[in-house]
């Protein structure tokens, strides 16, 4: 059974249709990259999967882990193992980062019928996962994302992902705003979470992230549709040729 199956998905913001019929299948253990120019609908797709209310789904279906995803509330999706690493992680002043993460973890555990994690266990888990993204321990004591640099915010996202161990992780432009060192660290963090049954969807504009997180599949999203899919080499072609050629190719009926 596939982990995620998207069929003919259409979505809009107010009157503007952004997704115009997306089909995508992610099997357990696979890493998919969604690439595309600005405004192609990449972030919308990520948002729709996570259940953001700004978007209205007008057509199509999404099956996640055997369930109708579109009928699930955002928090239920999260508890059921969907994790979105935000392009712009939100600051929540006064809310302790550790407290927040522990609440998130406990919400998921409760959903699975498990007990809440003990303080010691949690601390151990957190210490271990921080190593993955080389995150400074002081960030744990600060408020969620408040006053974090761009790089710290992105690391914090991947760190949360590591702690929450989702079944399906969606990374929305996780590379944006990162310098090359931070990019490498974040990518290593993600790579360490690869494998097993975990599915990962990497949404990115640039190929450079895919040098570090090498995808199994690449999909090109243009104007709300997947116009080309292929292996990891597709990303390199896009990097060399730009998005223009795929668009042209997609437009000419002969190709």
């Amino acid at each position, binding site marked *: 059974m596939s982990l995620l199956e998207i069929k003919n998905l259409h979505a809009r913001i107010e009157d503007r249709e952004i997704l115009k019929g997306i089909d995508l299948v992610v099997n357990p253990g696979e890493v998919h990259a969604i690439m595309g120019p600005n405004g192609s609908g990449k972030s919308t797709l990520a948002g729709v999967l996570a259940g953001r209310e700004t978007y209205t789904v007008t057509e199509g279906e999404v099956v996640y882990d055997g369930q109708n995803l579109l009928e699930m509330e955002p928090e239920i999706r999260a508890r059921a193992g969907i994790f979105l690493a935000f392009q712009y992680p939100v600051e929540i002043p006064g809310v302790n980062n550790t407290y927040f993460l522990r609440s998130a973890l406990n*919400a998921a555990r409760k959903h699975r019928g498990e007990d809440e994690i003990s303080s010691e266990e949690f601390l151990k888990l957190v210490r271990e996962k921080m190593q993955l993204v080389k995150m400074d321990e002081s960030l744990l004591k600060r408020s969620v994302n408040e006053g974090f640099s761009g790089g710290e915010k992105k690391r914090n996202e991947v760190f949360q992902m590591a702690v929450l161990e989702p079944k399906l992780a969606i990374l929305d432009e996780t590379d944006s705003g990162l310098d090359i060192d931070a990019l490498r660290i974040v990518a290593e963090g993600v790579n360490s979470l690869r494998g097993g049954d975990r599915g990962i969807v990497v949404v990115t504009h640039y190929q450079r992230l895919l040098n570090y997180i090498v995808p199994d599949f690449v999909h090109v999203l243009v104007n709300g549709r997947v116009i080309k899919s292929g292996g990891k080499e597709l990303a390199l072609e896009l990097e060399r040729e730009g998005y223009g050629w795929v668009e042209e190719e997609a437009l000419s009926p002969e190709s």
Partner: protein
Amino acid sequence: MSSSTTINDFANQQYKWGFTTDIEAESLAPGLSEDTVRAISARKGEPEWMLEWRMKSLRHWLTMIEPRWPNVKYTPIDYQSIVYYSAPKKRGSGPKSLDEVDPKLLETYEKLGVPIEERKILAGVAVDAVFDSVSVATTFQQALADKGVIFCPISEAIKNHPELVKKYLGSVVPYTDNYFATLNSAVFSDGSFCYVPKGVRCPMELSTYFRINARNTGQFVRTLIIADEGAYVSYLEGCTAPMRDENQLHAAVVELVALDGAEIKYSTVQNWYPGDEEGRGGVYNFVTKRGACRGRRSKISWTQVETGSAITWKYPSCILQGDESVGEFYSVALTKGRMQADTGTKMVHIGKNTRSTIVSKGISAGHGNNTYRGLVHVAKKAEGARNYSQCDSMLIGDKCGAHTFPYVDVRNASAQVEHEATTSKIGEDQLFYLAQRGISEEDAVSMIVNGFCKEVFKELPMEFAIEAQKLLGVSLEGSVG
């Protein structure tokens, strides 16, 4: 009876602590006159000078009119329909220990989690419980007495420590001060008295729990705290009130006096019944709280968490007379449903190099209306006065209101006065971020709001801070979405 029981049951679901205790109250008939005042004074066995002060207050009150300037609306109060005195019936001459306290009363406190029993000694909390109008139990007297701290109902202090009461009562809030304070001066039922002698650090947090219980009984609490030279005391005041249909008037007066080098920390968590969805019922809370930093380097710090009452009207203030004295005000005021709050502080800088800090967090949800009103006054001779004010408002939903009226009156050019204000809405982005981490909307709102209030909560003693956080969470249930 049966239909009202159903209604009460239903309403009680919304207001967890809205129960009443069946204790036979010994009440005066409703109405206010010189006879009422005499009757109150007589029942309390007060000396003549106290009665005179009450009578003076009443006569002055009759010449006053209710203030109209607060940014709150309510149906006029009929002062003649209020019962001004109600006391739990005593067996014999009154309880001498906890064993003698009405078990039902203890049960009520049990439900509220009020620490009144022996085991609470471990928590280090001394409780002076004001149930209705008479203090029925005072604990930890001995531990305090060993240090020379006097902590007792003010009715006892009037009898046993008249020199202190005469010297300080009305010295910070004169009986002519304002409509509600004057009313209180005439009819105050009871309250707490605390005197911490020179150089003594009060060995425990002092706390008082208030409840209004008997039907239609206004509660007129009077509190007087004096910290002598170099003394320190931390006082906690927590309130919840039972479910009630009629509006209940609560007009308390709190006076604090800090002498040279003394420090008083006064913390309040207020959760009176706020009324139903339509704003029916609910407590009218018109409170005058003021502290005088009389001495050099004295300090008074007010921390309040106001989550209840239909109407909140209070401005805990500091009169900074002593040179280098310090005043602080930390406030969280939450209004939801039809609640209205007009609250803030006055910092009056008189001495040299006096400092004050104001941190106010207003949260409005539902149809709530929240007003911050503050005055920073720097007198002519207050060289080097400094004030920092921060007023933040948070809006939840689009039917509530937040207002800020900061008054600044500076008469000395060397003063430094800073004011910062922000207004924010709980962001969809924040809610979605938390939802995406599996956190329910209610928990998310509670988390965001508690984060917003953090600067104030950290000023509260630990157990109070936890209680305050819970209160905010409970109060905001169902406010979003």
